[in-house]
C-alpha cells in the first residue's frame, strides 16, 4: 500500500499540479497510513474517518485556487459546476467550503465528502477521496484540479471583475509561466507509420507518455489509437497516458470480438474518424488552455442553452474548428469527423483530437502548437483586461 501511496505522490509531483511540500495522503487499509505535510495530515485525521472513504488527498494546487476562487465568487456560493465536459460528467458539482476567516468547519467538509468525490476548502486547498484505491483518489484529485483550474481562469477573463493587487500577486507565477511555450519536443519521434504490431504499441505508449512529460495534459484524461489491418488499436478506458504499454486493446472493425469492451469510451469517436478520414493515428487529450479557449465563447444572445451538446455555430481558434458533442455515445462521434479535415479539432469544453496519416509526430506537433497559441492568446487577453502583472 505504501508503494501505491508513494507512486501517486510522485505522479502528483511530476505533473506539477500541486505544491510538493503542501500535500498529504491518508489511507485506511487495516491501519491508517499517512504521508505528507503535518498540518494537512492533522486536518485529514479530523475528517477522514467521518467520510468512510478508503483514501484521502489534501493538496495546495500550484495555482492558489483555494484563495482565488473564493475571492471571485459571491459569499453565498457554496458549489461550482465544472464547465468542462469530462469533469462535469464525473463530478457534477464541486462543493466550496467557505471559512469566512473562522475555524475550519470540519462537519461541513465531512458532509460534503460523503456526497461528492472532492471539495475546495477556502485557504486550504483541494480535498479528494476515493472509495477503492489510492489511485482512484489521485484521479479524483486531478479531475477536481482540472475543473477548478479551467473554471477559475475562465472567470478571470470573463467576469468583468478587476483583480486586486493581492490576486495579481497570487497569479504572477502562472502569468510568468505562460510566457514560456511548451517546447516542441517531438523530433525523436518516428515520423513514419510504425510497420508492425509491436512498433504500433510502442509508438502509442511513447506518444501518450510524451504528452504527459510535456505537461500538455494530465495523465488520466485522454486516449491514443492507431489504425491497423486488423482493426483499431486503442488505449483502454481509465488508462493513464504515461503508462499505456499494457493497456491497449485491439478492436476488430467487424466486431468479431468484443474483448475491446474495456477500450476507451472514445472508441466510437475514433472509429468514426477512421471511417470518414484518411487518418491512421489519433491523439486525444485535454490541454487546459485549449479547453479554456473553447469555452470562451464571445456570442451574446445565443438561443443555445446546452453548448456542450447543441452548439452548431462555426467557431474556431485560428484554423482549428470547435465542435459540440458529449463523450462516448453522447454525440461526439457525429460532430467530430467532419471537423478533422485539417487534422485537428477541439471539442467544446472537453479537449483536443489530433490525427495523422503517418506516425504520432504530426498530431503531437499540432496539439503543442494549438496549446501554445491558446496560452499566448489567454495571456494577452488577461493582460488586456487586467493590465500588467
Amino acid at each position, binding site marked *: *500500500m505504501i508503494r*501505491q501511496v508513494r507512486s501517486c505522490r510522485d505522479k502528483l509531483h511530476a505533473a506539477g499540479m500541486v505544491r510538493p511540500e503542501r500535500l498529504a495522503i491518508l489511507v*485506511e*487499509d*487495516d491501519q491508517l497510513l499517512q504521508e505528507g505535510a503535518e498540518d494537512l495530515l492533522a486536518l485529514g485525521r479530523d475528517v477522514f474517518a467521518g*467520510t*468512510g472513504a*478508503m483514501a484521502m488527498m489534501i493538496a495546495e494546487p500550484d495555482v492558489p485556487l483555494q484563495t482565488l476562487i473564493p475571492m471571485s465568487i459571491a459569499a453565498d456560493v457554496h458549489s461550482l459546476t465544472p464547465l468542462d465536459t469530462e469533469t*462535469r*460528467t*464525473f463530478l*457534477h458539482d464541486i462543493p466550496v467550503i467557505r471559512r469566512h476567516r473562522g475555524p475550519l468547519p470540519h462537519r461541513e467538509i465531512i*458532509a460534503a*465528502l*460523503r*456526497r*461528492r*468525490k472532492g471539495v475546495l476548502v477556502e485557504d486550504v486547498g483541494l480535498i479528494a477521496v*476515493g*472509495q*477503492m*484505491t489510492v*489511485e*482512484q483518489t489521485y*484521479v479524483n484529485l486531478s479531475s477536481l484540479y482540472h475543473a477548478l483550474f479551467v473554471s477559475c481562469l475562465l472567470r478571470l477573463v470573463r467576469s468583468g471583475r478587476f483583480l486586486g493587487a493581492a490576486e495579481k500577486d497570487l497569479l504572477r507565477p502562472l502569468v510568468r509561466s505562460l510566457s514560456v511555450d511548451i517546447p516542441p519536443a517531438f523530433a525523436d519521434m518516428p515520423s513514419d507509420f510504425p510497420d508492425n504490431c509491436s512498433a504500433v504499441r510502442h509508438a502509442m505508449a511513447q506518444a501518450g507518455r510524451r504528452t504527459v512529460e510535456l505537461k500538455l495534459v494530465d495523465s488520466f484524461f485522454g486516449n491514443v489509437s492507431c489504425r491497423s489491418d486488423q482493426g483499431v488499436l486503442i488505449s*483502454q*478506458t*481509465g*488508462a493513464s497516458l504515461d503508462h499505456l504499454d499494457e493497456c491497449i486493446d485491439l*478492436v476488430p472493425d*467487424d*466486431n*468479431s*470480438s*468484443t*474483448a*475491446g*469492451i*474495456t*477500450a*476507451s*469510451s472514445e*472508441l*466510437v469517436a475514433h*472509429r468514426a474518424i477512421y471511417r470518414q478520414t484518411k487518418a491512421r493515428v489519433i491523439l486525444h487529450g485535454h490541454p487546459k488552455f485549449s479547453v479554456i479557449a473553447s469555452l470562451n465563447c464571445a456570442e451574446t444572445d445565443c438561443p443555445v442553452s446546452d453548448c456542450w451538446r447543441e452548439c452548431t455555430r462555426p467557431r474556431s481558434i485560428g484554423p482549428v474548428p470547435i465542435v459540440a458533442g*458529449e*463523450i*462516448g*455515445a*453522447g454525440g461526439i462521434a457525429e460532430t467530430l469527423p467532419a471537423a478533422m479535415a485539417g487534422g485537428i479539432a477541439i471539442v467544446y469544453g472537453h479537449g483536443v483530437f489530433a490525427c495523422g496519416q503517418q506516425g504520432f509526430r504530426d498530431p503531437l506537433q499540432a496539439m503543442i502548437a494549438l496549446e501554445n497559441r491558446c496560452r499566448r492568446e489567454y495571456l494577452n487577453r488577461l493582460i488586456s483586461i487586467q493590465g500588467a502583472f
Partner: protein
Amino acid sequence: MLSRHYGWHGCLLHVDLNRQSIRTCAIEPQLLHSYLGGRGLGVRLLRDAHHREPCSADMPLIFAVGPLGGTAAPTSARMSVVSRSPLTGTVFDSSCGGSFAWHLKAAGFDALLVTGCSPQPVLLDIKEGTASLVPASRLWGQTVSVTHQALAGAGSCAAIGPAGERQVRYANIITSEGNAAGRGGLGAVMGAKGLKAIRVDGRRQTRVAQQSRLAQGVRDVMRLLKASPFVFGDLGISRFGTPALVDVLAQRRLLPAENFRKTLSAPAIRINAAALHQRYQPHKRGCHGCPVACKQFTEAGDKLPEFGSLGHFAALGDNPDLDGIVAAARRCNDLGLDTQSAAASLACWSEIKGDFPRVEQLPELLEMIAYRRGVGELLAQGAQRLADELHQPQAAMTVKGLELPPLDPRGGCGLALSYVTSNRGACHLRAFALSHEVLRKPVATDPLTFAGKARINTGAENTCAAVDSLVACRFALVAAGLEEYAALLTAVTGLDYTAGDLQAIGERIFLTERFYNQNNGFDHRDDVLPPRFFTSGMAAAEGADMAPVDGEAFADELRRYYRFRGLDEQGRLPATYLDGQP
C-alpha cells in the same frame, strides 16, 4: 396509505395461503428509510422468520420493490425476491427485472409477503390496491411458457414451472418478459406454497418529491451511462447484451470448462456476442423503461441466453454448439430451472462419472431434473448434495451450496474472495469485482493480487446491497455510483441521502444477512472455496497456465476482511448485533 410519502407507498400486501386471506398493512416509515426496499426491505421483513425451514409453510416469500421503482430513475424497474434458500440454507435474494416489479409498485405496494401453503394450487391476482386468490389446478404441471400464455393480458406475470412445483432446489421464478428471479431455488419456495403464479396489473404513479432535481439526476446518470464503454460503448451490453463479456473473460482466462478443470479459450469464440449476432440477428429489449435494454431476443421472440448460461453450458464440452446451448437455456427457462445451477450440477455429476454429456442429450437431462425422474432426482439436489451423495465432495464447485458462476476464481483475487464472503453462496454479483478487475471501473485494479481486495470488497458489498435495495441494476454501477443514485433517491423521496448514507445502509443490510446465516449455523468454516482452486492451476491449450489461488494470501485477506466487517476469528458478529438496528 401514508399519502405523505414520496417514493414509497408505505404499504405491504400480506397473503396467507393457509387461511386464503389477503390483507394490506402499513410499513413503518423508519423501516423504509433505513432499509429502502428490495433486498434490504425483504431481509428486514424476514427478521422473525429467518430460522424457519426454506420450504416450510410458515417461511415467507417476499417480493419487494424499491423507492426508485416507477420513477424516471434509470434501470429502476426491478425487485428483489427474498426468502431462505433450499439450495444453500442461507437467506437469499434474487434481483429481477422485466416489468413485474414496475406493475407491483404501480399496484400500490412496496412489498408482497406470502406465507402459508395452499391445499390446492392457486394463482394470486393483484390489481391496484386489491388482490384475490384464484384456483389454478388447471395450470399446475404446465411449463412456464404455457402458464404465461394462459395468463397473458394487461400487466405482468411471475410463474414457476414443473421444477418449482417439484421443489427442485434451484428452481426459478420467471416473469412473462423472460426475466428470472434466479439461483437460490426461490421457485421451490413458491412451489411449496402451492402458488403457481402471480399476476399483477397496476397503473398508479410513484409520487416524486422534487421533479426537477430528479430530472437533473437522470441527466447525470444518463451522461455517465453514455460515457461508459461497458454500457453504451460500441461493444457494450446495450448493443450485444451480457454475452459482450465472453471475449474479454476468455482473454483473461476466466471462463471455465469441464467443471473448472480447464479453461475455455479458443472455443469461446463459438459462443461470443458476434456468433450470437451472426446466428440470430437478435432484437434488443429492456426491463420496463430501461434505456440500456441489454436483453436479446430472436425474431420469434425467444430470449437468448445471458452470459452466465452461455458460459456454463459451453463449459460442458470442448466443442460448444451455439444452437444446442440456446435450446438448453430455453428449455431450462421453460421448465423453471436455473440455467447456471442446472449446467453446473451436470458438470459436477459428469466429472464424477467421467463423461460429459453431448449437447443433444441436454434437453432430456434437463427434463429429468425438472420432473425429478431417474438421475434427475439426484441432479435436482444441486452440485454439493449430489457430490456428497456420490462420496466425491471435492467435485462440487460450490460455496455454501451455491454453484459458482462460470467465472474462475483463479483469474481474479477480488472475485475469489467475494465468492466466500457472499451471504448467498458463490456469486460474482455481490461485490462485483469484475467491475474493477476486468472492466476497469470505477478504477482498474490488478486482478492477480489480493492486496487491498478485502477493503474494496467490503465497500463494494455494501454498495451492491444498497443498489439492490433502491432497486437499481447492477450494470448501471459500472457507469454510475452511489453518489448519483443518492441524488436520485433524495429527489424522489425528499429525504436527504448521501453516498455515505447509502453505504451505511448497505452495510446494515449485508451484516443483517450475515447475522441470519450465523443464527442458522454458518461461520468461517463455510467461507471456503473448493480445494481445487488452491491446488491446481488451469492448463489451457494455448497461452500461459494460470496459477492456483495462493492459499496463504487468501487466508490473510479473509482475516483482514473479517476485521473490516467487525467479525471475530470465527467470522461471527456479536450475538447482540440486531439489538441496535431499526
